[in-house]
């Protein structure tokens, strides 16, 4: 019989990367490089931002918290996006690595949300005169934080791994829809309360008028946070894969 193997298509090759064994191979090779790049761009971005940029005319040196705040906020949102994609891939293609990546992304994303909220509060105290305002952006971040907590709690509560993976994936997808909905609902809520607050105007102006002096190191530290997220994600996913292997080994030992 003629058994010429069918040439793997590009998509086959892509999904092969998600095979746990192959994933462990390429991720172990890639991890040091990504970690080094994260360290380099974080260090240079933050040092450049903190020591080699001028103080803002109105905000003084408090403006420099932007180098932590904005990248953390960016990664907090992207973390949830990643969870959503991971959940979809798991439900459609049953790729274990993808759901483990979503699981690993949750705590990292939650901490990023916390960093964004905390740095925002620290910046807000001298600038707005208060740590917390019920501004749409702040509120939707708090809600995002709650979504992260719910997702992590559901993972922790269910013992069977595959059931937990399925249910948390369903939650992540429904949660993503409702997170978007909350985002816009919150806008509606605040507009109705007090039209065009100075807070949102200041926020918009800050983003529109940012000058290159501040923007270049910001871009660098954004890249740094992205790479840091990727590093933590890979480490987390690798830990989860190893934890699964360990469980299988222990189960096997008990049988023998």
């Amino acid at each position: 019989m003629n058994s010429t193997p069918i040439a793997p298509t590009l998509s086959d090759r892509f999904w092969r990367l998600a095979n746990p064994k192959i994933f462990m191979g390429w991720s172990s090779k890639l991890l040091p490089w990504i970690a080094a790049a994260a360290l380099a761009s974080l260090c240079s971005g933050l040092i450049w931002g903190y020591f080699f940029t001028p103080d803002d005319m109105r905000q003084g040196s408090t403006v420099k918290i932007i180098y932590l705040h904005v990248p953390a906020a960016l990664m907090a949102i992207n973390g949830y996006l990643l969870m959503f994609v991971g959940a979809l891939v798991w439900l459609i293609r049953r790729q274990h690595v993808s759901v483990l990546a979503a699981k690993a992304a949750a705590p990292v994303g939650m901490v990023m949300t916390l960093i964004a909220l905390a740095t925002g509060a620290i910046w807000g105290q001298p600038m707005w005169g208060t740590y917390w305002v019920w501004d749409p952006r702040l509120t939707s971040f708090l809600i995002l934080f709650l979504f992260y907590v719910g997702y992590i709690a559901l993972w922790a509560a269910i013992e069977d791994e595959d059931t937990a993976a399925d249910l948390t994936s369903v939650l992540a997808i429904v949660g993503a829809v409702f997170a978007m909905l909350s985002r816009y609902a919150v806008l509606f809520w605040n507009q109705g309360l007090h039209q065009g607050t100075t807070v949102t105007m200041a926020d918009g102006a800050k983003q529109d008028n940012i000058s290159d002096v501040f923007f270049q190191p910001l871009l660098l530290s954004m890249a740094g946070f992205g790479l840091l997220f990727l590093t933590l994600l890979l480490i987390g996913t690798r830990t989860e894969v190893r934890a699964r292997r360990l469980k299988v080994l222990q189960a096997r030992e008990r049988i023998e």
Partner: protein
Amino acid sequence: MIQLFLRDIGLSVRSGGGFGLALIFFLIVVTLIPFALGPDQAALAVIAPGVLWLGALLACLLSLDRIFGLDFEDGTLDLLATSPLPLESVYMAKASAHWLTTGLPLSLAAPVLGVLLNLDYETGKILCLSLLLGTPALSLIGAFGASLTLGVKRGGLLLSLLVLPLYVPSLIFGAQAVRLAEQALDYDVALVLLSAISLGAAAILPFASGAALRINLR
């Protein structure tokens, strides 16, 4: 499906602890508010829409784990899963039964309790309307949460943790509609968006919930 719907209503009315309890809880919450915030009539009128919406929402939360919990424990849900009725319809029947036994009475009771909080008659009507439009979403989302936490032992707290963030949009639009009505402003948009959430939940969540039930019964 209709049989199941009627059976659920019958169970919750007769078994005690479900039907009246949510209403009593609602009453107690509303009674406690003036104790916490002082009996100032003007101040109470300002917070009344929010308090009533929040009270109704929390009262709704109380009976959520009963939606599937008891049927899961005694195996009824397994029977339903093997019956020709799809689990999506089981979810819809149970969610609508839950709404009819909690959401509807709560909506009708809210204007009456609004009197206690110095809410005027016209605003009370809008409150009733907004709750009627909004509580279906609360029941639907709650039943979805209940189907997720089905297999979790003592999942009540977890259920609240999962469901409450999902309630945020409904609460915002619902309380906002009443607050706008109180200030004699245009509240149509809020009501329309509120109903949109309820309808959207009815369109999407049956599939998510059916999937979750199937996973839990596996």
